[in-house]
C-alpha cells in the first residue's frame, strides 16, 4: 500500500518535471525563433504541416502554467501530512521559486513574472468575489463595527507607523544612503505593506478553522483593508507625483476626502451592481444555461466600473457579492446555484494557486533585487510590532463597547494573522521607478515580507492555534431545532429591545429584515423563490432528503434480511400484479377521492382474495417458492418502489435530479416516516399502556395464529393504518405467522384512502382538531362500512400492530399501499424511534 502510494507520487513528480522541461524547451524555441527575426524565409511551396508556435504562444503558455499549478496542487494534496504542516500557499511559493529557478537557468531571463495588470484585472477579482459571495452575512454585519475599526483605523495606523518609523531610522543613517524623496516614499511603502492580504489569510485560516467570530474579524478586516490600502497608496502616490514640497494643506484635506469618497463610492457601486444583478437574475428563468454567467459578468463589471471611476474596485466587488448573495441564491435554479458555487470556487482557488506560484517565480530575477539588511529587517520588525500594538489598542477600545469581548487569545491570533500577500506585491510592482527611486529596494523588501509572513507565520499559525487552544469552529449539519430556536431568539431579542426602548443591534436588524421582506425581496426575488429562500425550510428540506435516504437504505437492508426468514409478506408482494399496481399508482396520483376510490378498491378487492388464498398456499410450500419470490420481489421493488438506487445517487448529486417524480417520492417517504414516528407523540396521552399490555398479552397467546376471521379483519385493518413496524431491533413477534392478509382489508383501505386523499392537498399539515378527535376514537370506529367486530375482537385486538409487522413489505410492494400509510389514524406505537438508525443525520 505504502509502496504503491510512493510509486504514484514518484510518477507524478516525473510528470511535473517533464512538463517543466517541456516548457523550458518551448522557451528555447521561442527565444531562438525570436532571434532569427520572426518572419523567416518565404515558404518555398505548400507545406502540409507547419509549426506555428508564435500563433499559439501566449494562450499556450498560460494553459501550461495553469496545468502545472493545478498538478502541483494535486501532488501536494496527495500527502495529507504535508499540507497540514506547511500551508498550501507556502508550498506553492516554493514551487514557484523552483520553477523560476528552472526558467532562469534556461535562458537567464525571468520570462514569467506577475504583472500588476494581470494580477489586478484577472487574478484578484474572482478571489474577492468568492469571498464576498460566500460571506456569512449575518456574522459579517454583526461584527461590522469591529471589522471596520480594524480595517480602517488599524490599516491607517499600520501604514503611518511603519512609514514614519522607517523614515525615522533612515534619518539616523542606519540604513546608509537611500535615494528617496523624503517621508512620502516611506509612507507610500508603509501603506502598501499595511494591508493584511485576504488571499493569504483565506489560504491559511481556512485550513485552521478558528471560531466564527475570530475568523470573520480577521477575514473581514483583510478584505476591507485592501480597499483602504489602495486608497492610501493612491493618495501617497499622487502626492509623490505632485512632489513632496508642493503638497499643501489643501491637498492633505483632499486626500482625506478622497479616502472616504473612494471607499464609500466603491461600496455604492458594488451595491448598485448587486441590485442590478439580483434584478436581472429574477428574469433568467428561461435562459437557465447562461444564468450563472450573469453573476460573474456583472460582478466583474462592478469591479471594472469602480476601477474606471478610480473608486475602490475591491470594495465594490466585495459588496456586490455580499449584497446579491441572498437574492441571487434564491432566484437561481438549483443547478445554476451549484454551477455558480463551483465556478466561483474553481476560479478563486485557481487564481489563488497561480498567484502564489507566480509570487515564487517572480522572485527569481536578479535584476529586481537590491539588498539593504537594515531596511529589510527593520521593516519586518516594525510590521510585526505595530500590528500587535494596533490590534491590542483597538481591541481594548472595542471591548469597552462589545457585548462579547475579544479575549487575549483572540488578540494573539489576530496579531499573528497579519499576513501580507499578493496585493502588496501588485502595488509595489505598480510603482513608477522614475518617481520612486528606491523601487527595487521596496520591491525586494515586499517580497521578503510576503515570504516571511506567508511561509513562517502561515506554517506556525496552526500550531499556535492548537497550542493556545483557540476555540475552533465545528462543522456539522444544522439542526432544525437549532434553526428554530435561532429564529425565535432573534424575535425575542428584538422584542426585548423594543420593550426596553433600546435602539440596538437587534432592533436595527429586525427593522431591516422587515423592510427587506416588504419591499426589497418583493422587487428582487422571483415569486416562487420567496418561499424557498427561508432557511428553516432549507434545513427542513435537507432533513427530508436525508430522511428519505436513510429510510430507503434501512428498508432495503432490512427487507433483505427479513426476507431470508419470513415468507408471509413476500408472498403478499408476490401476488400483486404489476398492472394492478400501476393502475393504483395512477389513480392515486390523480389525487381525487372519487376517482381513486372505486378503481383502487376494486383492484384491491380482486387481489384480496388472491392474497388470502395464496397465503395458505405459500405457507405450505414456501421453500419451493422462495427463490422465485426473491427474484420477483427485488424486481418489484426496483420497478415500482421508491427507486432505491436512484435515491442513493441523490445523496451525491442531488442537484442534478429534477424529476418531479423523485421529489414526490421523497416527499411521500418523508411524510410517511414522519407520521409513523410521530405516532409516538400522539400516543403519549393514551393508548400506550394499553398497547404495552396487549402486546404482552399477545406474546403469551400463541393461539393467535388460529384466530377467527373477525380477528383477521381487524388485523388487516391495523396493517394499513400502522404498517410501518419495520423495526430492525425487534426480532420478536415474527414467529407468529401472519394472519393479516384478509378479505376485510379493503373496506378499511378504502376508508384509509379517503383519509389520505383528504390529506393530500396539504399532506404535511395535520390539523390539531382532527388528531384530537381521531385519538378519541379507536381505529375501527372511524370506519363505517367495515365488518362488525365480534365482542372478543374488540376487547382483545384493538391495539396490537406488532403481529402484522411482517406485512410491512406489502407496503413496500406498492405505492398505493404506501398511500394508505398517510391515513392519520393514530395507532399506539411503542417504539417508533428505534426505527431510526443511529446514522440518521437529522
Amino acid at each position, binding site marked *: 500500500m505504502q509502496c504503491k502510494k510512493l510509486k504514484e507520487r514518484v510518477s507524478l513528480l516525473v510528470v511535473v518535471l517533464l512538463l517543466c522541461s517541456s516548457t523550458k524547451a518551448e522557451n528555447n524555441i521561442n527565444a531562438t525563433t525570436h532571434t532569427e527575426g520572426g518572419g523567416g524565409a518565404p515558404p518555398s511551396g505548400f507545406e502540409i504541416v507547419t509549426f506555428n508556435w508564435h500563433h499559439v504562444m501566449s494562450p499556450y503558455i498560460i494553459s501550461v502554467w495553469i496545468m502545472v499549478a493545478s498538478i502541483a496542487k494535486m501532488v501536494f494534496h496527495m500527502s495529507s501530512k504535508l499540507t497540514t504542516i506547511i500551508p498550501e500557499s507556502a508550498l506553492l511559493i516554493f514551487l514557484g521559486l523552483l520553477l523560476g529557478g528552472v526558467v532562469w537557468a534556461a535562458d537567464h531571463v525571468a520570462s514569467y513574472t506577475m504583472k500588476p495588470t494581470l494580477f489586478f484585472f484577472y487574478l484578484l477579482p474572482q478571489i474577492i468575489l468568492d469571498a464576498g459571495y460566500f460571506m456569512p452575512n449575518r456574522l459579517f454585519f454583526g461584527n461590522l463595527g469591529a471589522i471596520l475599526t480594524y480595517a480602517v483605523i488599524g490599516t491607517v495606523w499600520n501604514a503611518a507607523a511603519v512609514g514614519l518609523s522607517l523614515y525615522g531610522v533612515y534619518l539616523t543613517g542606519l540604513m546608509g544612503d537611500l535615494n528617496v524623496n523624503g517621508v512620502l516614499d516611506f509612507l507610500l511603502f508603509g501603506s502598501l505593506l499595511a494591508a493584511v492580504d485576504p488571499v493569504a489569510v483565506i489560504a491559511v485560516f481556512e485550513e485552521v478553522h478558528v471560531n466564527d467570530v475570530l475568523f470573520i474579524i480577521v477575514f473581514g478586516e483583510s478584505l476591507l483593508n485592501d480597499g483602504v490600502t489602495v486608497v492610501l497608496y493612491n493618495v501617497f502616490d499622487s502626492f509623490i507625483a505632485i512632489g513632496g514640497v508642493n503638497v499643501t494643506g489643501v491637498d492633505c484635506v483632499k486626500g482625506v476626502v478622497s479616502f472616504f469618497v473612494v471607499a464609500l463610492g466603491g461600496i455604492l457601486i458594488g451595491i448598485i451592481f448587486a441590485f442590478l444583478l439580483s434584478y436581472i437574475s429574477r428574469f433568467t428563468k428561461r435562459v437557465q444555461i447562461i444564468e450563472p454567467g450573469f453573476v460573474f459578468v456583472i460582478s466583474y463589471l462592478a469591479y471594472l466600473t469602480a476601477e474606471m471611476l478610480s473608486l475602490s474596485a475591491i470594495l465594490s466587488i466585495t459588496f456586490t457579492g455580499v449584497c446579491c448573495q441572498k437574492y441571487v441564491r434564491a432566484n437561481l435554479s438549483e443547478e445554476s446555484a451549484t454551477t455558480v458555487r463551483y465556478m466561483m470556487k474553481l476560479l478563486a482557488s485557481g487564481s489563488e494557486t497561480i498567484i502564489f506560484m507566480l509570487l515564487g517565480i517572480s522572485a527569481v530575477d536578479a535584476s529586481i533585487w537590491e539588498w539593504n539588511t537594515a531596511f529589510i529587517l527593520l521593516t519586518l520588525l516594525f510590521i510585526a510590532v505595530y500590528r500587535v500594538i494596533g490590534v491590542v489598542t483597538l481591541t481594548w477600545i472595542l*471591548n469597552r463597547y462589545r*457585548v*462579547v*469581548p475579544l479575549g487575549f487569545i483572540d488578540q494573539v491570533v489576530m496579531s499573528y494573522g497579519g499576513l501580507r500577500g499578493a496585493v502588496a506585491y501588485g502595488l509595489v510592482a505598480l510603482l513608477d521607478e522614475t518617481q520612486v527611486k528606491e523601487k527595487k529596494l521596496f520591491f525586494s523588501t515586499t517580497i521578503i515580507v510576503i515570504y516571511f509572513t506567508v511561509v513562517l507565520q502561515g506554517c506556525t499559525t496552526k500550531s499556535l492555534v492548537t497550542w493556545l487552544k483557540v476555540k475552533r469552529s*465545528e462543522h456539522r449539519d444544522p*439542526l*432544525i*431545532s*437549532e434553526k*428554530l430556536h435561532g*429564529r*425565535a*431568539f432573534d*424575535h*425575542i*431579542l*428584538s*422584542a*426585548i*429591545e*423594543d*420593550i*426596553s*426602548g*433600546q*435602539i*440596538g443591534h*437587534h*432592533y436595527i436588524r*429586525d427593522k431591516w429584515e*422587515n423592510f427587506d*421582506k416588504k419591499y426589497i425581496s418583493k422587487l428582487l426575488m422571483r415569486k416562487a423563490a420567496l*418561499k424557498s429562500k*427561508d432557511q*428553516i*425550510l432549507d434545513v*427542513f428540506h435537507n*432533513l427530508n432528503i436525508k430522511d428519505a435516504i436513510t429510510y430507503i437504505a434501512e428498508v432495503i437492508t432490512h427487507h433483505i434480511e427479513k426476507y431470508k426468514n419470513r415468507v408471509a409478506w413476500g408472498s403478499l408482494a408476490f401476488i400483486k400484479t404489476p398492472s394492478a399496481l400501476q393502475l393504483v399508482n395512477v389513480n392515486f396520483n390523480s389525487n381525487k377521492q372519487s376517482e381513486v376510490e372505486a378503481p383502487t378498491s376494486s383492484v384491491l378487492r380482486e387481489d384480496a382474495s388472491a392474497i388470502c388464498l395464496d397465503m395458505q398456499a405459500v405457507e405450505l410450500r414456501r421453500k419451493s417458492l422462495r427463490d422465485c419470490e426473491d427474484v420477483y420481489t427485488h424486481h418489484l421493488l426496483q420497478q415500482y418502489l421508491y427507486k432505491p438506487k436512484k435515491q442513493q445517487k441523490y445523496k451525491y448529486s442531488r442537484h442534478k435530479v429534477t424529476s418531479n417524480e423523485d421529489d414526490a417520492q421523497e416527499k411521500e417517504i418523508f*411524510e410517511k416516516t*414522519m407520521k409513523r*414516528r*410521530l405516532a*409516538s*407523540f400522539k400516543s*403519549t396521552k393514551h393508548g*400506550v399502556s394499553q398497547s*404495552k399490555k396487549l402486546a404482552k398479552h399477545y406474546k403469551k397467546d400463541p393461539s393467535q395464529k388460529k384466530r377467527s376471521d373477525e380477528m383477521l379483519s381487524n388485523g388487516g385493518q391495523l396493517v394499513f393504518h400502522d404498517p410501518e413496524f419495520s423495526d430492525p*431491533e*425487534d426480532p420478536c413477534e415474527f414467529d407468529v405467522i401472519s394472519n393479516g392478509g384478509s378479505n376485510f382489508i379493503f373496506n378499511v383501505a378504502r376508508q384509509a384512502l379517503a383519509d389520505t386523499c383528504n390529506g393530500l392537498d*396539504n399532506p404535511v*399539515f*395535520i390539523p*390539531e382538531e382532527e388528531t384530537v378527535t381521531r385519538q378519541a376514537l379507536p381505529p375501527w370506529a372511524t370506519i363505517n362500512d367495515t365488518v362488525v367486530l365480534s365482542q372478543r375482537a374488540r376487547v382483545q385486538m384493538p391495539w396490537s400492530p406488532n403481529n402484522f409487522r411482517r406485512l410491512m413489505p406489502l407496503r413496500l410492494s406498492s405505492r398505493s399501499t404506501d398511500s394508505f400509510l398517510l391515513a392519520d389514524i393514530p395507532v399506539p406505537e*411503542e*417504539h417508533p*424511534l*428505534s426505527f*431510526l438508525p*443511529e446514522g440518521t443525520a*437529522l
Partner: protein
Amino acid sequence: MGAFHSRADDNYIRHLAKKTGFSVEQVEILHRRFKQLSRDEDTLQREHLYGIPDLECNPIRTQIVAAFFDKRNFDKDSPQGTVQEIGFEQFLTVMSHFRPLKLRMTEEQREQLRMEKLQFLFNMYDLDNDGKISLEEYRHVVYELLSQNPQIGNESAAIADAAMLEAARICMGQMEPDEVYEGITFQDFLKMWTGIDIETKMHVRFLKMDNTTLCK
C-alpha cells in the same frame, strides 16, 4: 417624569441594581421606559406591551409578552401561574435575563447565567408549566414563529415535528421499543443547547444613554 427623587428611592434603586445586576443608570433608564409604557402607572399590563408599535410585526409577541407576566420568570418563591400586572421590580428582573456577560466572570458564574437564560427560554416554550415541552406546545410556538410566511406557515406542524424528533434523538439516543418520548424536559433542553454558547448570544445591549424619546 418618573425619575427617582427621594433618598428612599435612591436606596431602592441601588437595591434593584444590586439584585438584577444592572447599573444604576440602566435601572433609571429602564424605569423611565417602564413609566412611559405603563402611562405613568406603577404597574404594567399586557395591553401596555401590546401597544408598542414596533412589537406589532413580531410573530411571537404573545409568548414574549406572556413571559413578562409569568411568575416563573421573576417570582422565586412561588413559581407558578401568571399575573395580570407587574411592577417595576418584576419588569427589571425579566429584563435582567438579557444582560450581557461581564468581561471577567468565573466559569461557575457563566454556567449559572447560562442556566438562567435557558430556563427563561424553556419557560417560554413550556406553556403549561409541567416541566416538559410537549409536541403540542412546540407546534404552537413554531406555528406562531413561522406564521409570517404563509407558505412555510402551512408546514409549521411538520417542521415542529421534525424538530421534536430531532430532540428525541439527541436526548434519548436509541430508544427502547417500549419507550415513548413525552416531551422535552429541561435536562433535554440543556442537552440540545450544548455547543451553542447561549450566554454570548442571548443578550441585549442596555445602553447607558437615554433614548426613550426616540421610541414609541
